[in-house]
């Protein structure tokens, strides 16, 4: 049985993720849950996130999600981080005046800046909101059947900068290049929202539901 646990630490709407998973894996047993045991039993874990990092971290700590997520990743089963869920895996974030995050991935989460410009010198707005291209910097089972440079839906003002750039599995451009996806063993995380990215997003989620974590 493919049991997929979507981590619920009280921040934002998780139904979109659950509906998208149900759409691509109708036979999967999908749970939106804060239950450590259920997450431990699950074959796959999704760690989403929206909202401010400070509020997310305080709920994560209160509910013991730092341990739950670390344990899931250590177990070797496929884990997918989405948006703020990706950022929270890093060492710390510049958001809210500087917040320590979970420290699972070595690196920092940085603000795009108020004076961001593109290659032509045109002012870029923050948040980075809308559909942007993702260059697949490494081949990965989660990119299967998705064209290189396919567009995904982003909405964020901060971006992840892994210390080890080899962890970047997807790269996008906004002002300059930034890491829009990472892959580390059985962990994959995206800054964009696959559950809101139409066909290519659903394809990525379908790939995740089949991925062995290798």
């Amino acid at each position, binding site marked *: 049985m493919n049991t997929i646990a979507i981590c619920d630490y009280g921040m*934002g*709407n998780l*139904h*979109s993720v659950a*509906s*998208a998973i149900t*759409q691509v894996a109708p036979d999967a047993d999908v749970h939106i849950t804060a239950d450590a045991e259920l997450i431990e039993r699950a074959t796959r874990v999704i760690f989403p996130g*929206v*909202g*401010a990092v400070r509020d997310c971290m305080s709920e994560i700590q209160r509910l013991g999600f730092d341990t739950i997520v670390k344990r899931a990743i250590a177990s070797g089963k496929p884990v997918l981080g989405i948006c703020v869920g990706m950022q929270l895996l890093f060492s710390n974030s510049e958001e809210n005046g500087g917040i320590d995050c979970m420290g699972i991935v070595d690196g920092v989460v940085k603000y795009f800046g*108020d004076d961001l410009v*593109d290659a032509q010198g045109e*002012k*870029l*707005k*923050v*948040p*980075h*909101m*809308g*559909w*942007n*291209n993702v260059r697949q910097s490494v081949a990965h089972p989660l990119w299967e059947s998705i064209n290189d*440079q396919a*567009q995904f*839906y982003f*909405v*964020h*003002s901060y971006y992840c900068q892994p210390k080890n750039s080899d962890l970047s599995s997807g790269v996008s*451009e*906004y002002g300059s290049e930034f890491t829009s996806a990472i892959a580390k063993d059985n962990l994959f995380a995206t800054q964009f*929202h696959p*559950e*809101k*990215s*139409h066909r290519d*997003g*659903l394809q990525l989620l379908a790939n995740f539901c089949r991925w062995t974590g290798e």
Partner: protein
Amino acid sequence: MPLSKRIIPCLDVDNGRVVKGVQFVDIRDAGDPVEVAKRYNEQGADEITFLDITATHEGRDTTIHMVEKIASQVFIPLTVGGGIRTTADIRAMLNAGADKVGINSAAVKNPDFVREASERFGAQCIVVAIDAKRVSEPGEPDRWEIFTHGGRKPTGIDALEWSEKMVANGAGEILLTSMDRDGTKNGFDLPLVKAMSERVNVPIIASGGVGNLQHLVDGIKVGKADAVLAASIFHFGEYTVQQAKEFMQEQGVDVRI
């Protein structure tokens, strides 16, 4: 490659049906919101905006149910506006599957509501809807004021100053509707769109007046909007979203095809 410009079909929903009025009167029925949203999703819409114009309290529950249904079948971002007055309203819509909420009159009544909402839910899901009407006489410098209650109630507030204030309070995006143009099919109020887009550093969605595909191009190229919203040109089958995108691409606008 730059961020693609977004095409956003808008569903004005009254008591469970998509409607479209010309300057908010003469309302025409345009179908079941779930079916309409699915159609636009298939056609390649970048987002969908759902504006609830239902007046009654009972109607609100219908809306929540409808948002749930759309969100379970449409995998692109969904913004829900209309009647959002409290953080509980926002929570209900987000839980139903909305990605963003549009705040309009409640922001005018209490600008701190936007700050509170943004701090609680994040700027990324707070869209401030601004209904603006030109108040300058011909020959005078352009000036627009915001109007509430479907464009009926003047507030005396300068629209550009208001947009700056809303962004300072944490709006992540602005949905800018010209009440002079809404429903006219004469195109966006381009000086208004351009003035606001240059004034604030969050994305501007231009709305009100789209009657043909060139209007969409103008909103982006002349108005400098980040996204364009339209209703009737899509509802009544004049154009598909796909056709709109192909036309825009031919005109040099970067869109997601």
